[in-house]
């Protein structure tokens, strides 16, 4: 069995700071990590490999330094890694990204037929959840999003049964392999990388493909040119027109501050007080 896991290297968003005056992202010193949602996809792929044997190939599109993210995945137990990297990919939105990644999956499949493509549910920097469905549509793969459990994989008959998180419940879906699965977070726990794997990963020769190597045929479909969406403005939040009524415990006792706030809220919103009283009397 051959599984491809698509990942993205992202800035650790918990550590992103925005310049208070210029509203630009201050990237210095922000560590780059494997998109945390993708690790659930990788772990699930590794579990299938543990059970059925086969090979897990990592795939990432990004700048040359995204190699580090792929090496991290090698240390967890992935077998091979491909970084699709080319200046002409710059500025790609989700449609252009899925075009490039789909082409790369096709190339990987020429080496060894791919049975399952995994992605995370979404990335933490873009949060769109659009690239997984995009790759599936471009490759004509059955799409299974928000998968919480793989209930059954039957390689004899090329079928897979999964549980999928839906609104108000869980769908049990059975489909054919090959397919693309976006894995829900919290569904498994990433294993630890043993020391020998880490040493192996550090030396692992990640394969770097430019657009030709990735089999990109139509250069109008990649990068900025291939992106229908245009970012017209990036900006910081605006304060509310009406300033907050401010009080400080430096100027009054906490008790007075509390009394004051409660009185103001309930005077301005008498229905709110009625609601709270109604609940309290129940």
């Amino acid at each position: 069995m051959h599984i491809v896991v698509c990942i993205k290297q992202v800035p650790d968003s918990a550590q992103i700071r925005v310049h208070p005056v210029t509203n630009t992202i201050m990237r210095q010193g922000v560590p780059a990590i494997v998109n945390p949602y993708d690790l659930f996809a990788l772990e699930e792929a590794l579990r299938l490999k543990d059970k059925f044997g086969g090979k897990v190939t990592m795939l990432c599109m990004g700048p040359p330094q995204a190699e580090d993210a792929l090496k991290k995945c090698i240390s967890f137990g992935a077998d091979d890694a491909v970084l699709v990297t080319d200046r002409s990919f710059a500025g790609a939105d989700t449609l252009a990204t899925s075009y490039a990644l789909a082409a790369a999956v096709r190339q990987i499949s020429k080496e060894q037929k791919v049975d399952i493509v995994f992605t995370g549910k979404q990335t933490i920097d873009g949060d769109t959840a659009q690239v997984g469905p995009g790759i599936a549509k471009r490759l004509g793969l059955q799409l299974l999003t928000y998968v919480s459990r793989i209930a059954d994989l039957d390689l004899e008959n090329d079928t897979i049964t999964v549980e999928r998180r839906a609104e108000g419940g869980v769908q049990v879906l059975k489909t054919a392999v090959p397919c693309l699965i976006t894995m829900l977070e919290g569904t498994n726990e990433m294993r630890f990388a043993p020391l020998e794997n880490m040493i192996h990963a550090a030396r692992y020769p990640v394969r770097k493909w430019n657009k030709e190597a990735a089999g990109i045929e139509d250069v109008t479909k990649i990068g900025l040119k291939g992106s229908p969406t245009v970012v017209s403005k990036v900006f910081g939040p605006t304060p509310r027109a009406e300033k907050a009524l401010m009080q400080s415990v430096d100027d009054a006792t906490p008790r007075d501050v509390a009394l004051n706030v409660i009185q103001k809220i309930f005077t301005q919103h008498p229905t709110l007080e009625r609601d709270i009283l109604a609940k309290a009397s129940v």
Partner: protein
Amino acid sequence: MSDAEVKKPAARGGRNLELPEHLKAYKGVWVFIEHDRGEAHSVSWELLGEGRKLADTLGVSLSGVIMGGPDEPLDTIAREAYTFGAENCYIVRDPVLKGYRNEPFTKGMTDLVNKYQPEIVLLGATTMGRDLAGSVATTLATGLTADCTELRIDPATRALAATRPTFGGSLLCTIMTLAYRPQMATVRPRVMRMPDADPARSGSIVEDTLGMIETDIVTKLLDFIADENSNKVNLAYADIIVSGGKGLKTPDNFKLIWDLAKVLGAEVGATRPVVQSGWVDAERQVGQTGKTVRPKLYIAAGISGAIQHRVGMEGADVIVAINTDANAPIFDFAHHGIVGNAMQVLPVLTDTFREHIAMRSRKAA
């Protein structure tokens, strides 16, 4: 560097930002109406409210798209859609559309778009809406903007200007699809205000067929296991929410949030860092990657007010913020600000609320 002068997107990479002539025929605003077990999802009505404004600005019609099985109440849902502002509904009724599956729904939506050519298509950012939107946008090769917090029409281009948080919720960006149609966007539940229903409104139905049979479809829906509702936290629809952030310092201090919530009959919310630290369950997270809430009262203690949190709760009627830092961003959009240590203020606020409620209840009795 000469690079600095090249700022306009139009000038970069020879990219076409003009709408081609053949796409100018695309007219009208559509909302995909999601339904489950006979009930429409409220996000669809929220989107109709927003879609109505966009359609009025453009001077075009607003339509709902309803797909489902022959035994589902699609006409009833259409009638309800009229009360929220739709002028007509496209209905695709087919046994294979009973229960959501990507393949038939993608075909249904894509065929409708190609046939009737709307300029804007809006979907709820639910597990169904996001699954469908990503597939339809790729099939149609057009632009899709996820999880928008504001939708407007750009006066200069008449294009949809969709605003969403970016960079992990630290900034906002406005995105437009200029040279492609339709312009697609998803919006999370509760982000937009629920419009008032007007029972006097009516509309018309256009029925279409899917042209797919069950044997064409590879994926089979074997079962649907409904969630048990008993212990579910219903944060999105709570009237009062007391939320805590990392300013509370320890999980032990977070108990002060539960104390106040109990007195007010409120739900407990939290920021992403609090959830990531495991102080409360993920289902209590408020913000861009958690729940969007619209309570009547939102009390935020030890929360700085980063955009990623703000977009999830700024629709609250009254926001009370407690923070030691008088310059914390949360005071830019709170209605009442208390500068002070939450560990000190919360217990006093809890006692004062309790006394106030006791006193008023006695008076009422």
